[in-house]
């Protein structure tokens, strides 16, 4: 099985790498930002320009993600968030690919921007602190945390 792991840089990438233990035995491909750490990632990967809050870059990255998802044809896309999760999960959803959103471990009482949007999109929406399920709603599940 092939799992695409989409994540921003920094803590999002750290969480993704820790979580990827869940996919031992499967093929994984990372979709993340073109940073020093992204480039040094010793995994199959596709690197994109940082979107931040720039709608034009969001559009460009979306247009770049589409052929990547079509070529890779993952069985599922799992994200630990950041804004790169937005175009990735939306496209994956449109392509009929299973989508999993894992809210960051640092989100305890408040929702992240990408979480707020993708709550309505993801097939599975996980939070890492039980109190956050009430803030998000019924669909949010707490099934444990990285630590």
């Amino acid at each position: 099985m092939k799992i695409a792991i989409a994540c921003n840089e920094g803590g999002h990438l750290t969480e993704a790498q820790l979580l990827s233990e869940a996919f031992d035995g499967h093929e994984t491909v990372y979709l993340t930002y073109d940073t020093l750490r992204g480039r040094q990632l010793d995994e199959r990967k596709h690197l994109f320009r940082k979107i931040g809050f720039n709608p034009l870059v969001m559009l460009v990255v979306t247009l770049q993600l589409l052929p990547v998802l079509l070529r890779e044809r993952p069985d599922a896309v799992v994200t630990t968030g950041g804004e790169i999760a937005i175009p990735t999960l939306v496209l994956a959803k449109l392509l009929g690919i299973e989508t999993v959103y894992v809210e960051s471990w640092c989100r305890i009482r408040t929702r992240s921007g990408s979480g707020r949007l993708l709550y309505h999109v993801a097939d599975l929406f996980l939070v890492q602190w039980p109190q956050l399920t009430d803030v998000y709603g019924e669909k949010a599940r707490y099934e444990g945390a990285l630590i």
Partner: protein
Amino acid sequence: MIFATVGTADLPFDRLVGELDRIAPELDHEITAQIGVATVEPERVEWFRFTDEETIERLYAEADVVVGHAGAGTVLTALINGTPTVVVPRRKELDEHKTEHQFDLADAIEDRPGVFVVRDIAALQAAIEAADRVELGSLERDRSLETFLADYVGARA
């Protein structure tokens, strides 16, 4: 060895870098600081802005104490390595971060073994000294999230 890190965020954390530099002579340790985009350049500690993954991993592994901003990546890496960690939340009003949510993380983990939260930077030295006195075993992790995800993905995809 004390490893201090402000993470890869775009906003400077001069408050931490400056205070660390100020108290460095009082600390009984070699200090290495990853200062990111800080506008102050330390004079009393070894420092760099960003570096490669291998170096970062080695610094975390060798550190007796980690001093970090309250970022998920930093705190997870330090605690999983079993290193006592001084956690300094970035403040939004000081333009150290876009939101206040680093305080939420600090509040939530403050009672965990080996975690020392510094809200007033004047308390940094005492926190580092307290962290230095702690011996942590390796962190026990129940892996329930990973197990759940493995089962979920395995069943559906």
